[in-house]
């Protein structure tokens, strides 16, 4: 009976949109670095940690008011505890395991076991609880337990919690981790020299120097000396001791220079990568952005004219380092990567952002591959590809490109028009380049709902010096009506094509666009 109830409950959770939304939101706040509002949560948690540590330091010499203590013990700790529980909760899903188990049991015609999915879920959660970050989270909660004052020192673990919320520290640690071998070698050398020098000074001066009473004193002196700190509380008194001292000072300086150079070189190696990661992370927070593949003539021209319109909403991916440097020098956002690689496009926020990918390299094969790569990751990505020849169009279409641009064809048609209809050429050129005098623009009725239900004649377009060129009916299969009759009624989701001066269109929009209250 209980088992059936639990299975039903698991299925209820599995089908509940509300539960899924709540869990996704919790996940986004806690773990999804691409989530727009996560930074506010992080800032809030960092503030709590800073306040908590400030209270600890203040408390050393000053009595704190009751409410401060209350805030520190209950509020901060309760929030930390809730965060801790939430992290354990979002780590994995029990109901998914149960649903999987029921499915498998039905398929294999065996009895459903609730123990198996529960065990799997529990194992996952325990595995999480034993991770260093989860242990730090737990230790950061402990200081609230007042009977044991010694636990107050665990407040310092709250400092470690900062690691969760600050990327810079994590990046620094990441860079150090990449030089693990060199740093461990140096550490080993440091230990070796310190121990050798410590033993030497102990042997030479244990009976001569009143400050060196034990091997610990000798090791302490060696470490303070090799680090070039030199407090002066212990100093050698025999000539042999002084020789040892000189030797470890020299090796200390050498070692510090070595460590510094290892860290600096690893930073300079990783600097580009860190910068690129930062650009991608910033972009992933946007609702919509553009990935431009290739930095050739076409991209250059596009950015020259339109980079300002897409500020902070685009990125150029180029696999030629020189071209990347050139793009950066021009002031564009570019990274050195290969856009045809799966993991490169996967770095972008494919789930939440509306991404348009421009495949603009000069090579059809590369562009088709880039298109396929993007579409295989998400059908949602809109791909605009550049094709060089007519024969390639079909292949681009099969690869899933949403629009195909053929520079030569467009230019040929423009040339043809410039020769055969020179007057019209000027008009078309102005329309194509969006000149102020003749902007061909779209009025989207889902944004201008006051227009819905109106007849075109009621809009008095002539009075507003606008021309109605066409009407695109709503939906993907919606009909396009060229030069629609004036008695046509506008419907929800329609797109009205109008032509006129920019100022006329903007004024028209301002009249019919009202804030939508829900």
């Amino acid at each position, binding site marked *: 009976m209980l088992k059936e109830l639990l299975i039903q409950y698991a299925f209820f959770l599995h089908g509940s949109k509300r539960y899924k939304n709540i869990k996704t939101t919790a996940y986004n706040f806690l773990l999804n670095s691409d989530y727009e509002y996560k930074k506010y949560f992080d800032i809030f948690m960092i503030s709590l940690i800073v306040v908590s540590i400030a209270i600890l330091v203040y408390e050393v010499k000053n009595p704190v008011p009751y409410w401060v203590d209350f805030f520190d013990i209950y509020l901060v700790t309760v929030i930390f505890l809730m965060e801790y529980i939430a992290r354990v909760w979002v780590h994995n899903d029990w109901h998914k395991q149960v649903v999987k188990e029921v499915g498998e049991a039905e398929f294999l015609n065996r009895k459903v076991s609730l123990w198996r999915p529960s065990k799997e879920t529990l194992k996952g959660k325990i595995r999480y609880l034993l991770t260093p970050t989860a242990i730090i989270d737990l230790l950061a909660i402990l200081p609230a337990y007042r009977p044991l004052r010694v636990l107050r020192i665990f407040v310092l673990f709250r400092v470690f919690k900062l690691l969760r919320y600050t990327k810079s520290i994590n990046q620094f640690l990441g860079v150090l981790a990449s030089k693990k071998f060199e740093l461990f070698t140096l550490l080993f050398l440091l230990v070796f020299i310190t121990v050798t020098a410590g033993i030497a000074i102990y042997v030479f001066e244990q009976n001569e120097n009143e400050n060196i009473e034990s091997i610990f004193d000798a090791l302490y002196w060696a470490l303070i000396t090799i680090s070039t700190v030199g407090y002066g509380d212990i100093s050698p008194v025999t000539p042999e001791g002084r020789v040892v001292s000189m030797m470890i000072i020299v090796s200390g300086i050498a070692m510090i220079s070595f460590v510094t150079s290892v860290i600096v070189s690893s930073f300079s190696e990783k600097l580009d990568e860190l910068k690129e990661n930062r650009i991608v992370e910033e972009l992933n927070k946007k609702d919509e952005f553009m990935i431009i593949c290739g930095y050739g003539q076409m991209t250059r*021209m596009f950015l020259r004219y339109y980079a300002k319109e897409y500020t902070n909403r685009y990125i150029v991916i180029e696999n030629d380092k020189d071209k990347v440097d050139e793009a950066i020098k021009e002031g564009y956002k570019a990274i050195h990567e290969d856009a045809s690689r799966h993991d490169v496009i996967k770095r972008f926020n494919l789930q939440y952002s509306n991404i348009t990918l421009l495949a603009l390299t000069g090579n059809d094969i590369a562009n088709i591959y880039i298109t396929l790569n993007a579409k295989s990751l998400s059908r949602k990505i809109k791909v605009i590809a550049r094709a060089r020849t007519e024969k390639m169009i079909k292949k681009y279409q099969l690869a899933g490109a949403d629009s195909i641009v053929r520079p030569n064809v467009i230019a040929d048609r423009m040339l043809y028009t410039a*020769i055969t*209809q020179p007057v*019209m050429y000027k008009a078309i050129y102005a329309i194509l380049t969006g000149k102020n005098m*003749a902007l061909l623009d779209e009025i989207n009725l889902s944004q201008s709902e006051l227009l819905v239900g109106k007849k075109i004649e009621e809009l008095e377009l002539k009075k507003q010096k*606008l021309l109605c060129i066409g009407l695109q009916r709503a939906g993907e299969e919606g009909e396009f009506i060229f030069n629609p009759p004036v008695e046509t009624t506008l419907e929800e989701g329609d797109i009205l094509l109008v032509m006129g001066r920019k100022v*006329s269109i903007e004024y028209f929009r301002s009249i019919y666009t009202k804030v939508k209250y829900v």
Partner: protein
Amino acid sequence: MFNRKALMFGYSNTTKFLAENLTKELHYLVIIVDDEESYQEAKKAGYRVKLLDITDDNALEELDVAEDDYLICVMKDHYINVFLTLSLHALFPKTTIIALSDSYHATQKLKMAGATRIIDLYQVSANRIHNILTKPVATKLIERLFSPEEEFSFKEILIPKNSILDAVMVDDFDFSKHGIILVGMIDKRLSKQFIFITSGLENRFDIGDTLVCIGYNDDLNKFEEYIKGKEDES
């Protein structure tokens, strides 16, 4: 058909496209090349072709070029294209020179060299991409207007003598009755500049004005015939 000539310099896919489509529009079209291979290829394809050293001013001077002809510079090498434009502008300063460019810098140089119109291969494509992103419906329409297979297009219509449009104010004439849209015109009386109808000027139609309209091809042709009406009535 226009009573004009077009001289196209260079042999490429662009030249082929233009040569195939312009034959109906112009009474004389010649392709000028500077290498034997292109010359043979163009000749084999059935085009009227001339072989000459285009860096030689004397050879260029001998070409029969009138003021209202077209000189089309579509050489593959943009250095030569700029140089050719400069030479042609120096020799035939009043003739329209249309040049194809493949970079922003080449466009600047062609402008300075005296090209009347420059079509920048990548700029038009960049505009197109921007339009696809920001105005997809409008872009599709423009594409259809450009496509020769479509049933509607742009058309230049000259107001002939004794036209019913003569001395009619723009606002007083209902184009929608004819199923077409007047986009703009060249008002001979005011200037030779193209004026968009949405610019707000109160214009009057006169004989010799050129109207630019969009509409279904049938409607445009019917309208062109219709405005000649006055002559027929008389």
